[in-house]
């Protein structure tokens, strides 16, 4: 059974639903896929996965979410788990935020909405190799 996970964070449930389905189609049972609607919920998921001894490989996060911005969240993640690859998936190209995420969260890539499955797949494959 897989012990590696990909976590998606976005405040829009429909984005989470389609994103997760895409990942499942791309990578099948190779990874565990979890989703969270906010940074707070993401932390809970991270803790749960840690408890299950499932290692998070990648976090794909939206930028504009209530309460906490994606770049801020990814920076916190990076601080605690520097080995997790951080990817931003956003509809709003806020250059300053992306730059901040690059510096503080070692942002691997930023995918712009609307994205293609190939784009997503390529980013994840290259990130995990």
């Amino acid at each position, binding site marked *: *059974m*897989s012990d590696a996970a990909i976590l998606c964070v976005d*405040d*829009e*449930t*429909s*984005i*989470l*639903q*389609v*994103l*997760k*389905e*895409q990942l*499942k*189609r791309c990578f*099948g*049972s190779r990874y*565990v*896929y*979890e*989703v*969270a*609607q906010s940074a707070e*919920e993401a932390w*809970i*998921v991270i803790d*749960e996965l840690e408890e*299950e001894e499932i290692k998070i490989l990648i976090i794909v996060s939206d930028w*504009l*979410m*209530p*309460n906490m911005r994606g770049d801020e969240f990814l920076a916190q993640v990076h601080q605690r788990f520097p080995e997790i690859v951080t990817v931003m*998936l*956003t*509809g*709003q190209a*806020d250059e300053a935020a992306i730059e901040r995420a690059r510096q503080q969260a070692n942002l691997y890539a930023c995918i*712009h*909405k*609307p*994205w*293609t*499955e190939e784009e997503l797949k390529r980013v994840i494959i290259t990130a995990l190799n």
Partner: protein
Amino acid sequence: MLNLLNSPLNTPLAPAQLKPKWSAWFILMATITVAIASATAIHQLNQIAEYSDDSRLLLTQIKERASRLKALEWEGIFKGKIDQDLTRELAENQQNTDAILSKLRQLNQQHELDKFFVLYARHKSEVDISLKLIAQGKAKEAIDHHSIDATYDQLYAEASALENIYTEKKGQTRQFSDLGTTFSLMLSAAIISILFYQFSQKLLFKNQELETAFEELQRAQSQLIQQEKMAALGQVIAGVAHEINNPLGAIKASASNTHKALQEALVDLPSLHQRLNSEEQESFFKLIAQALHNPPAAASQESRALKRKMTAQLQAHEVEDARYVADLLMDMGINEEFEFLLPLFKSDQCEWAIQFAYNLTCSFVNNQTILRAVDRSAKIVFALKSYARFDQSGKKQVVKVADGLETVLEIYRNQLKRNIYLVRDYQEIPNILGYPDELIQVWTNLIHNAIQAMESGGTLTLALHQQGQGIVVNITDTGLGIPIEIQQKIFDAFFTTKSAGEGSGLGLHICQKILDKHQGHMKVESEPGHTQFSVWLPIECV
């Protein structure tokens, strides 16, 4: 923005259609000349009339004197001498006559009296001869000598003729002068009318100019409102774009997912009967039926716990990739009741069958996602359209105040994601008559200010209720509040607490103007942690 704003103001007003300036002056000068000329003519005519009248009177008097002289002469004849009384009366008569004659001579400028004077001199000399004879006591000779009657009659006839001429002349001159007066009056009336007409024309033109200027001003004001609105939109447009990219992303991914699912399903379809026995197939179709019926489980702590439990149960049935299969089942809306899947769990085709079922059914979920995303995009586009709309008809329209508020909330949706909790307290209110585009500007300003006041989060409350003949919109934030000393100034034009370039300082001033136009009003109460803008708008007859 200012350039755009200036353009309508700079447009030259309708070209001046004033007649050349001298025309009025020319008319005035001509009028004065004509007036002086006609006054002089009338005066002269009157003088002629007067002179004719005087002459006529004098002639009458002369006639009287002549007849008196004749009577005195006869008295002398009768007495046979010229006594003292007669001498005095004769002297007196002569004096009077001389005075009248001298006056007549003065009037005799055109020599029309020459003949009369000759006749008078002849008559006088006759009378003098007769009187001399009487004085010499030759009364009888005086009578014999007498040709006085003849000269008298001639004189009398001439005087009468002259009197008639003068009467006629006076009548004629009077008629002329009357005609002149009438003409002058008519001319004056005409001139006054012309001048008045010109004056009215100028006034009318000035009035039109003013009206045009006023309309320009109003247009400039509504354009200013629109500019402010669009400037506010400019600040949030990136966020609105993000909002559209979300549903677009969902649509694109859903379509791609459906496409892949169908491709896989079509490949798998022929092998269904080979891979699954009838019992397993029954279980498989039940799964499909349930998946079509159940909504997918939403991500939550609860659903994750459920998934872990299900994973454990699947592991107990020795299902391979239990967690993955559990995830697929959860996404198909299957959670606790899954005994009917036992035949599949036991099958070595378990994962294949569940993936196949998932591929067959996921397009329904994806289609739902697409429909929701399309609705969402349409809502954003509609909000943008309502927001950017600029009605120049200037006519009041039926306004649903809540719709206007919702439009602005949609535009500011991602701004609200910055730690702001939104509370809607909309009571049933009637529609009002107003200018929807301009009211949107009011809501934009108030909501924008409220959001800015809550940099570090808070609660934005929008409340609607009816009050008397109007409706009340309360926009409340839990931000820092407005210091009491500037509360009075916030509605002033160009007053801003923001640094240069961030706000024009026209926002609330424009709101106030818009509310004035609606005969509504706005008040503010503020203390730290509670700031409420309260807008009242009249309902009017809808």
